[in-house]
Each structure stands twice: as C-alpha cells, then as structure tokens.
C-alpha cells in the first residue's frame, strides 16, 4: 500500500533569487532520505512560491523494505568439529546474535568458509519515520539567513507554518515553535487558509485560494499572458529570461498589466530606459516590430484583475519619477566636458594601495599602446586603442553611472560619441568589460579586445604587485575570471604576442607608474597563476591531463597556438600515427634531458662521424627553417607532417648510433644535437609527457 507525502514550509517572503535552489535542495534531500531509508516511492514534485517551499512524494510505500542483516561468525573449521557438530564457539556466536544455532549458514569468503547469522530486519512503518523527513527542513542552506523573535534557529525568513501529511494523517513535528499540521495559507490578500483533508487536495486547494503553486505552471501563465498582450497590441515584449524567472518568484497569482510613460522620455538611450525599468521596477520593455522602444511597460501583479487600474496608475507614477531623475542626470552629464569627467577619476579610488581610476587609465593606456605595437597593429588601431584606454572608465564619474552602475560602459560609449570620439573608440569603451563571465560575449573588434586585455592585465599585475593574490575561495577582485578572459581573447583574436612578452610589458608599465615591483617574483607568480587558469580552461575543453602537461610548460609562448596544439593532440590522441610520433620524439627528448639545456652549444657538423648524424642534422635544419612560423600561423597540420617525416629518420639514427659514446667529443656533440632538436620539437609539445 502507498500514500502520497506532502511537506510544505511557509515562510515570510523569501528573496526571489534563493527560491529555485532552495526548492531543488529540499527535493533532493527528501529523495536522498527516502533512498537511505529503503522507502520506495513514485515521483517527487517540488513546488515553490515566495512564501512556501514544498514537495509531494507520490506513492510512498507504507513500510520500509525488509532487510537481511548478516553477521560473520567463526570459520567453519572452528564452528564445527570433525563429526560435523556445532562447537561451543558456534553455539556461543549464535546465542550472541539471538538466532538458533541450526539457522547459521555457511558461506565462502576470500578468507575461506565461515558461518554467518542471518537476521531478517522488518521494515518500520513509514508514518513512524517521516518526522525525521520533516526535520530536513532545518538543514536547507541559504546564502543569507536570519534570526527572528526569540528563536535560536537561523533561516531564510521567519517560519510561519508547516504542513506535513502522509495521505490523510498529519506527521507531527515542531520547528522553531511552529507545530506541523494540515493547514496552509492561501494568497496573502485574495485567499484563506486551506485545511487539507488529504495530500491529493494540495494543488487544487491552493488554486481555489489564488495560489499557483507549481512554478512552471505559473511561469507559463505569465508567458501566455505576455503573448496575448503582444498579439492584442501588436507589440514585441522583451522577455528577458532572468527577469521572467525573478518575477515568477515574486508572485503567487500573476496578472500581467501594462502602463505607459511620456514620450519625452524616449530621448533617453534605449539601454537606460530598459535598465531603469528592469533593475528598479522589474518591468518588461516594449518594442514595435522595427525594434524601436515604445513608451509602454509591462509588469506582473501579484493578484487578480480587480482594481487593476490602481496598480497601473501607481506604477506609472513611480516610473515617471524614476525617468525624470534619469533625464535630469543625463542632461547634467551632457553639460560636462571630457576633461571634467577625467579629472574626477583622479578622486575615485580603485584600491587604497593601487590608486585612483585616474592612475589606472594612464597605466592602461601605456599597456594598450605597447601591446598594440608588439602585435603589429596598424597605426590607426594603435591610436584608437590607446585613446580608448586613455578614456577608460571615464563614465564612472558621471551621474548616470553613479545612479545606475549597471550602465557602466554603455553610458561611456554614448557620451564618448556625443563628445566627438570615434565609433571604434566608443565601442571599445563599452566593450572593455567583456567577457564578464564564462560564456559571455567577447569584445567585437580587436581594438576593443586589446583595451579589455590591457585593463585586465593591469588589474592582475597591480594586484599581484601589492600582494593581493587569490587564495582558495578568496578572489575578491575576480582575478581568475579576468585571467580566463585574457586567454579567451588572445585565442579568439589570434593575438600574436607571447604570454611572456605581454607580462613583461605590463610589469614594466606598472613599474614605471611608480610601483615597487619585485619583477622576478611577480613574473613567476603571475605565470603560475595563469598556468592554473590554462589548465582549468583546457580541461573544460576536454583536453586530457597528459596532453595538457605536454603543451603547458614555461615559457608558454603564444597562448592561442598553445590551445590549438592541445586540441590537435587531443584529436589525434588515439591514432597510431600519434603513438609512433610520440615514441620517436620522446626518445629524443629523454636523451636531451641529460644536457643542461640553457647552456648547450650548437652541434658541429664536422664532428659528425656517421651519415645518420648528418642526415638528421639536415632534417633538423630544414625543420628549424619554418617550424615556428607554421605554428604561429596555426598551420598545425603542416607542422605535424614535418614531425611525422622525422620519425623514420630518428629511428634510423638510433638504430645506428650510440649517443653515449666512449669518445667524449663525439658524445657531447651528439648530446648537443639531441638537445637542439628537442628544443625545436618542444615548440609543439613535450612528447615524452604523453601517456598513450
């Protein structure tokens, strides 16, 4: 026999952004508990509104499954004597286990045959166990929790009711002074208390009291109403998914309504209108079919259709005040000169020990310029990138960004254009914040990417210079994310400057800006820091550990080619060609290790004793000619083919030549040859690292 189980906790309004996770956590914990307790059940449905989290377990068995417990006794040789009768040892064991000695069973184990006592443990009744499931409510974790009244418990918000029912029966339990029962609250203003006779009545009972308790059903209801409104008015409503999710977690009974605002506010940039409406009021913006913003907004009320005009009027009034403020700030800002904004940046502190945003933009401009020159940008690009970096974050001193921080960059671009800056410069100011998170858009041009990289490089190196390194879960300035962003941009734009060159340029700039930098320490620390980022990024892309080790070693060189080589090796991983190449080249690398690499002198062809040496030397010379070039141009396949061609030459060499000759002159020359060849091969990978 089975019954459904309901667990609902009623709280004062939870923060919208906590609800989805808390609901899923409750479901998962309940299911885990049921499994741990050998309770069979059908489906688990989770529900939530701003005021409640709940789970219904369908077809929950009335009893635990029975279980056989086994206890190992003495070895058979000890349990029975030669006549096959039970010994004292066996009788004692059986008594201790509370079973009859005749019920002991013999079983083979790895250590030989033993006797076992088997006891059937009868499952307990579910109703008796379920109060422990109710107790799970107190184990939910929230980003922020609180205390209230005189209660000791910390919870997301004060607990107001708990319903715990198994079929028709209440499962009694108390949390923070609240006794569980069969009563749950309906809509705060439109509903009454629901007294459940049976778990089956849950959803319908709440619906009668104006609560759509299933979050998916509620979201669909909002979406349907939005669609109907679009059709009716011939609008296109910006159905921002995050906003829809948030709004869904702010209401129990959604009714979509719309309002209007004065057309004079349409002089504000679309981003300002959308942001003001979304961030401050949770409104959806409305566009026409040509994507122009219309002077309307759409919002979702927590209630029904009655007196909707009050709600509309109130919301219009609030929006009017907000937009009036925005217009005021927008106009104030436009009365200012660029110099005014830039001068004010000197008074905005980035970090006490790093300095002001004014200092930052100067350093960043220097970095951007040097990187652009190294990358061989055209003159125009160099000057655009430097200009954008020079104006970096100037909108931080504007009224608009002060009021709406999420408009940073957007306002900067808008004002820059109005102040006569070029389109490229304006969009670099806007896009230098990108990518803000893993999977975000990248800057849309290489000038924007250059500025974004310069900004991030500056943050990383200045932070390391003053000893602010991310540790464990501590990364308050998001340096890991910024390092990952740099790698992504280098990769996407084939930025042709090696990692080490970039880092040196940045350290130099930071030093010239007056930081006392322990150059070699910062260089090493930042390199190691990037190594971890690169490893993470490579394994995210499905690159195996040994492949990562084969390509990721100091100096890293160009990061874009490093990634490319890793992907190539990973693709080739299971091929026989790969096995052959790795084996042959690994031999070279292994022998080359015997030489002190940095001080190795060039092999001298006149010392060669055998043809194979000369032949390998010619191949080496030929490889050297364009191998690094091919790699930089990402002609990975061509570079690979060169390596493949080397394989028979190398094998032949080792067949005929003993590197560790007794003749020291020959030996040293051969080792030198190996070392030089190995250095060249390492441009592709350290093949000896591959575990094929």
């Amino acid at each position: 026999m089975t019954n459904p189980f309901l667990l609902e906790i009623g709280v004062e309004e939870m923060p919208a952004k906590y609800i989805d996770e808390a609901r899923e956590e409750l479901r998962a914990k309940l299911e885990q508990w049921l499994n741990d307790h050998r309770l069979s059940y059908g489906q688990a449905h989770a529900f939530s509104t701003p005021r409640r989290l709940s789970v219904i377990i369908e077809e929950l068995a009335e009893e635990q499954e029975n279980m056989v417990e086994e206890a190992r006794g003495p070895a058979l040789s000890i349990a029975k004597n030669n006549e096959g009768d039970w010994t004292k040892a066996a009788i004692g064991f059986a008594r201790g286990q509370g079973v009859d000695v005749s019920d002991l069973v013999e079983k083979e184990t790895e250590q030989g045959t033993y006797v076992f006592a088997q006891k059937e443990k009868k499952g307990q009744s579910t109703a008796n166990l379920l109060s422990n499931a109710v107790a799970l409510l107190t184990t939910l974790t929230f980003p922020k929790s609180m205390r209230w009244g005189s209660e000791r418990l910390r919870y997301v918000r004060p607990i107001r009711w708990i319903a715990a029912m198994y079929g028709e029966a209440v499962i009694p339990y108390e949390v923070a002074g609240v006794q569980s029962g069969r009563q749950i609250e309906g809509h705060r203003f439109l509903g009454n208390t629901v007294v459940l006779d049976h778990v089956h009545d849950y959803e319908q009972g709440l619906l009668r009291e104006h609560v759509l308790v299933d979050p998916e059903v509620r979201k669909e209801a909002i979406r349907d109403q939005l669609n109907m409104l679009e059709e009716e008015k011939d609008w296109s409503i910006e159905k921002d998914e995050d906003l829809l999710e948030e709004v869904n977690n702010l209401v129990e009974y959604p009714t979509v309504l719309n309002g209007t605002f004065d057309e004079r506010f349409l002089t504000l940039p679309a981003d300002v209108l959308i942001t003001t409406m979304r961030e401050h009021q949770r409104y959806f913006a409305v566009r026409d079919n040509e994507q122009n913003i219309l002077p309307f907004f759409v919002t979702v009320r927590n209630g029904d259709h009655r007196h909707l005009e009050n709600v509309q009027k109130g919301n219009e009034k609030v929006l009017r005040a907000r937009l009036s403020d925005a217009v005021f700030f927008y106009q104030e800002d436009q009365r200012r000169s660029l110099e005014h904004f830039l001068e004010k940046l000197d008074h905005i502190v980035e970090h006490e020990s790093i300095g002001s945003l004014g200092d930052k933009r100067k350093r960043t401009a220097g970095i951007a310029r040097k990187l652009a020159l190294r990358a061989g940008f055209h003159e125009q690009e160099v000057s655009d990138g430097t200009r954008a970096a020079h104006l970096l974050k100037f909108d931080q001193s504007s009224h608009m960004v002060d009021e709406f921080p999420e408009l940073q960059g957007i306002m900067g671009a808008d004002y820059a254009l109005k102040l006569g800056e070029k389109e490229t410069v304006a969009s670099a100011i806007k896009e230098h914040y990108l990518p803000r998170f893993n999977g975000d858009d990248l800057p849309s041009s290489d000038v924007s990417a250059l500025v974004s990289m310069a900004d991030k490089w500056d943050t990383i190196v200045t932070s390391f210079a003053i000893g602010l390194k991310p540790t464990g879960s501590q990364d308050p300035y998001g340096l890991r994310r910024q390092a990952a962003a740099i790698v992504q941009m280098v990769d996407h734009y084939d930025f042709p400057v090696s990692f080490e060159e970039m880092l040196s340029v940045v350290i130099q700039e930071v030093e010239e800006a007056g930081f006392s930098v322990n150059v070699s320490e910062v260089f090493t620390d930042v390199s190691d820091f990037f190594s971890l980022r690169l490893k993470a990024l490579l394994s995210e892309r499905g690159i195996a550990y040994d492949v990562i080790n084969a390509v990721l070693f100091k100096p890293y060189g160009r990061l874009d080619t490093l990634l490319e080589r890793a992907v190539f090796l990973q693709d080739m991983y299971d091929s026989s060609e790969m096995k052959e190449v790795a084996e042959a080249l690994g031999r070279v690398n292994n022998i080359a290790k015997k030489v002190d690499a940095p001080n190795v002198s060039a092999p001298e062809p006149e010392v060669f004793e055998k043809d194979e040496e000369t032949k390998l030397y010619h191949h080496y010379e030929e490889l050297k000619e364009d191998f690094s070039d091919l790699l930089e141009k990402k002609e990975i396949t061509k570079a690979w083919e060169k390596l493949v061609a080397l394989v028979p030459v190398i094998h032949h060499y080792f067949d005929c030549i003993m590197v560790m000759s007794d003749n020291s002159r020959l030996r040293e020359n051969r080792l030198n040859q190996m070392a030089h060849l190995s250095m060249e091969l390492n441009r592709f990978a350290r093949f000896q690292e591959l575990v094929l």
Partner: protein
Amino acid sequence: MNVQEVILHLQDYWAKKDCFIMQPYDVEKGAGTMNPMTFLRSIGPEPWNVAYVEPSRRPSDGRYGENPNRLYQHHQFQVIMKPSPDNIQDLYLESLQALGIKPEEHDIRFVEDNWEDATLNAWGLGWEVWLDGMEITQFTYFQQVGGLDADPVAVELTYGIERLCSYIQDKENVFDLEWQDGFTYGDIFYQPEYEHSMYTFNIADLDMLKQLFITYEKEAGRALEEGLVFPAYDYILKCSHTFNLLEAGGAISVTERTGYIARVRKLARKCASIHYANREKLGFPLLKEAKEDAGS
C-alpha cells in the same frame, strides 16, 4: 487624507498595539534608526515597543527645494517591536488599512532588501514594501546593532511619510502635499529646504566642521569613559551629522571617508556594549516588568 492625519492615524494605530508613542529626538540625525529609542533600546534582552515620527536629515540630498522627490530633510514614521511579533507582517498591513489602503485593491509586495549602517555597525534582513511599484516602507529584522547580536531580534518598520502621502494624495511633487487642509508641505518646508541646501553646499565652514567633528568625537569618548551612554550617544549623533555635512560639502575624499566612518563606528560599538553592561547591572528592569505582566 492630509499629512498630519496620516501621522495621527499611524500613531493611533500603533498606540493600540501597545507601542510607546515617543516624540522626535532633539539631535540631528540621518535616519530614525539613529534615535536612541531605536539604537540603544534594540540592544539587550528587554522587550521594547515604540513608535514615533523622525525628521531625518540627509544633507547631500538637499536640492534647494527644486527637486520633486529629494529633500534635505524628510520624515520617517518609525516602529520598533522587540521581540519581533509572529504576526508583524499582518500588523503592518493592518496599519495600511488604517490609512484607507485596502491591500486587495492594490499590489503590495515584500521585495528583498537588506539594510546595513556602517557607522552604527548594524545590519538586518528584510524587505522594502512596494505599493503598486512604489517603495513605501523599509521592513527590517535587526541582526546586529552596535556590533552586538540582536537577541531577541527587534523588527523595525520605517514608513516614508512623504512617499506614502504622495501616493495617498496622488501628488507628483512633495511640495504640493497637503500638510493640513489648505496648507501645503511647501508652505512649511520650502524655505528651510532652500536655506539648508544653500548652507550645506555654499556657506558651511568646512574647517570649523572638521574641528567640530574632532571635538564631538573627543567628548563622546570622555563621556563613555565615565560610562555615561546617553550623553555620549548624543555626541556620536553630532559626529555623524557633521560628517554628513562635510561629505555633502565635498570636504572628504574617498579614502578619508572610510576613516571617518570607522571612527564613528568605533564609538557606536563602545556605546552599545557599555549600554548593555549598564542595563545588565540594573538587572534589565523592563524584562522583569514584562515577566510580572505575564504572571499577573
């Protein structure tokens, strides 16, 4: 309903819910929370229910009386209940009904908003209450006050009187609100708004204010040495207001700002812990009375 009727209704309502009706405190302050009837009384185990109007000064919000929503001084209606009652949300909604606002005819929301005051070393969790999209009340369960854990927890309701009235009276401009029939908010407050803004942004002697801050800070410290919490707290409030004037006058850089806040916070923390010790020495008198009430 004019402004003073709104205030009278709220006072009447909360008086019936066993709150002491107090008067505004006579030292300048930025928020009703800073009134000692809230800050000091929400510390420690003694029960405490109080309601009062607080004129709150925010010098940097001064706009010469030209902005329809921003004011140098606005009015808060403040309610504190300790320990927070289980039905506090219902009590609050009922207070709106007392003002003629029927929840089912509007859209009332409790939207997450956490509160923190760095100078008071106080924070709490709660909501801003939205009435048809307008924030009319800040609703906070104190978690820490003066660096001490709130135990039991006090709940604070702060109604924005001007916001609420502009909704009730359907006015766009705060200066058009009717304070009493026939007299507007502007009749009473336009001139002080203008003059305070003028003073704050153009006239204030910033060097003198910096000196005053130091003087007040010292005096607060001296009073605390003697265990005299209430006079010390008055000087802490004066420090806070002086700091606000200095900031509005542009006399404080961002780095300095942190330093000033830390100095006020240090005093507030000390004040809080001495106040707790003083009440403890007295045997938390209000706690006893509450128990006797319960017993009788």
